[in-house]
């Protein structure tokens, strides 16, 4: 079962090529003494490409598998099936030693900046450390590079000698970014990098990411539950639900004309900071079912207002139109002019 897509965009050489990725693990709960532990399918057949220089967003609610996808790419979780290729090189099943040179190219930033930093190490030393590990440059150059980078992510010279707890959340996330970028990675994977920050600080980090992208030619995989930020930052977006991609396409198009009923409900549920705006919210009933016991057929059908008998029995494939806007839905409304 491979509900993958071949779109016009994937014809170029992608930086990251993910095909039919699965991650299933046994639950810690057992049914009976010697009974099987139920299988939790956190990621279930995910495929997408990221082109060099692109910002690719993955959105979805908690438990949809977006963070697990990031961990699978970074080899922090074991894929039970499928392939992850980086510039044509297969990453799944690679040994730790084989991963080390790749770590320079694939860097990541996670949600909690305080937990990501060593509390007993000065900011500057934290940023120098990756250079030492990967044996790049001499001491003086390392120091100079780290100082320059820290300043370019917006830290003042006076802050470089401080410890993480002396900085604010936004400043810490800048340090984490600098540490990820010091090795000049090609792909930066961000998992909820701004969720722990205050509203006014979030915008600072989003702008910084945008600036770094254009300055360094960075490719971005941006995972977030915040659709507005993803729309703002990303070129293409995938929407995940219960371990599967239900809709994927160019950000502008996907957000302005969403096709999958889940995407539409998700977008309509976002409160808008505009008291005059008409609210026509598509109310979703209930909450996503457990990944340990997903429904048959289309995984969204129990909450979908358009669901038919067909949806209950068969899982729809992710099918793309000419513009690379893909939807996994039997009932998705595709504007007439685009069907062509």
């Amino acid at each position, binding site marked *: 079962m491979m509900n993958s897509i071949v779109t016009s965009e994937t014809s170029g050489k992608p930086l990251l090529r993910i095909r039919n990725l699965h991650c299933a693990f046994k*639950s810690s*709960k*057992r*049914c009976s*003494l010697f*009974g099987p532990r*139920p299988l939790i399918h956190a990621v279930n057949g995910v495929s997408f490409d990221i082109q060099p220089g692109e910002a690719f967003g993955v959105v979805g609610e908690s438990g949809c598998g977006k963070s697990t996808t990031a961990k699978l790419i970074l080899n922090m979780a074991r894929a039970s099936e499928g392939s992850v290729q980086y510039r044509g090189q297969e990453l799944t099943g690679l040994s730790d030693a084989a991963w080390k040179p790749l770590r320079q190219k694939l860097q990541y930033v996670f949600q909690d900046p305080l937990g990501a930093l060593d509390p007993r190490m000065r900011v500057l030393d934290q940023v120098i450390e990756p250079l030492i590990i990967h044996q790049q440059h001499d001491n003086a150059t390392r120091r100079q590079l780290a100082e320059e980078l820290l300043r370019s992510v917006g830290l003042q010279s006076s802050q470089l000698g401080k410890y993480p707890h002396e900085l604010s959340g936004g400043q810490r996330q800048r340090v984490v970014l600098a540490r990820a970028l010091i090795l000049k990675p090609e792909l930066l994977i961000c998992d909820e990098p701004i969720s722990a920050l205050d509203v006014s600080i979030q915008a600072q980090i989003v702008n910084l990411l945008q600036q770094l992208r254009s300055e360094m030619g960075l490719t971005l995989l941006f995972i977030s539950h915040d659709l507005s930020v993803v729309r703002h930052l990303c070129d293409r977006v995938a929407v995940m639900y219960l371990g599967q991609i239900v809709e994927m396409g160019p950000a502008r198009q996907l957000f302005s004309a969403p096709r999958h009923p889940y995407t539409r409900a998700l977008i309509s549920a976002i409160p808008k900071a505009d008291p005059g705006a008409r609210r026509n919210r598509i109310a979703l009933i209930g909450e996503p079912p457990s990944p340990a016991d997903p429904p048959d057929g289309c995984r969204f059908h129990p909450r979908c207002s358009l669901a038919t008998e067909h949806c209950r029995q068969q899982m729809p494939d992710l099918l793309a139109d000419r513009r690379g806007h893909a939807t996994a839905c039997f009932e998705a409304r595709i504007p007439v002019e685009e069907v062509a």
Partner: protein
Amino acid sequence: MNMLYVLQKLARALLTVLLIVTTVFVVLRLSGDPAIYVLGLDADPRALDVFRQQWGLDLPIWQQYLQFLGNCLQGDFGYSYFEERDAMTAVLERLPKTLLLMGITGMCTLLIGVPAGIYAALHRNSWVDRLTMLVSVAGFSLPNFVLGIFLILLFSVTWQLLPSSGSGTWQHLVMPTLTMTVAEAAVFARFTRSAMLEVLNQPYMRTARAKGLRWHQAVRRHALPNAAIPLITVVGFFVGTLVAGGVVTESLFAWPGIGRLLVSSVANRDLAVVQIIVMLIACSMVFTNLVIDLLYGWLDPRVASLRTGD
């Protein structure tokens, strides 16, 4: 909680006991020849051989082990070479004394340690809290034998108020219990305090207050039951430290319990007695932990559902 879960726990407990018995058996056989201990170093080699033959000590160790297990199953736990009688009888004779000491110590510990910890937590940073914590640090950092000797010097030697050794009257009980209670109660007070502080900061305490419960009501109905959960675990360790402390304390005050018996039997290589005592201690700890596990599942529904896949 289902039957299966209980059975599973029981099976594990039995396995643990078997493992301990085996280890004790092997270690004791390897650590010295009882014949030499009983008959003396300069005994006639033939007498030694006869002794070994009599007690099956000349057989290969695995045969001795199987024989030992078989005997145990039949209720025969061996013969005390030193006391020259059934080892079980020798141990059982001493058991009530030890249980008395442990029982009183246990009760005093819970009655002093837990309320002190709760009070300290509820009055955090007050002078009572600070004093309690100061006393408790002193309490558990003072080794049993130091405190015991100190008490003997004070109450028996200087003031001549209490007997320094033996058993029989309530006066004999005072110093051994006191010695053991101080350290145990100190640990309990500290642990209760931190468990309570943890619980008091939980969001559900705010919810309980927001719905209209008074402070003391919220503490009684929501904080105490939750704080009890980690405390139950400590009771498991408690039994262990009680036994260890008991051995020292009984020796110090010449209290005729199994702790003292254990020390002298080890010195005399009285294998059967040592084995029984160690088995007894192991069984009591395994049993306590079994009870705690089951209690845990009963007190905390999250644990029960995690384990049984509810």
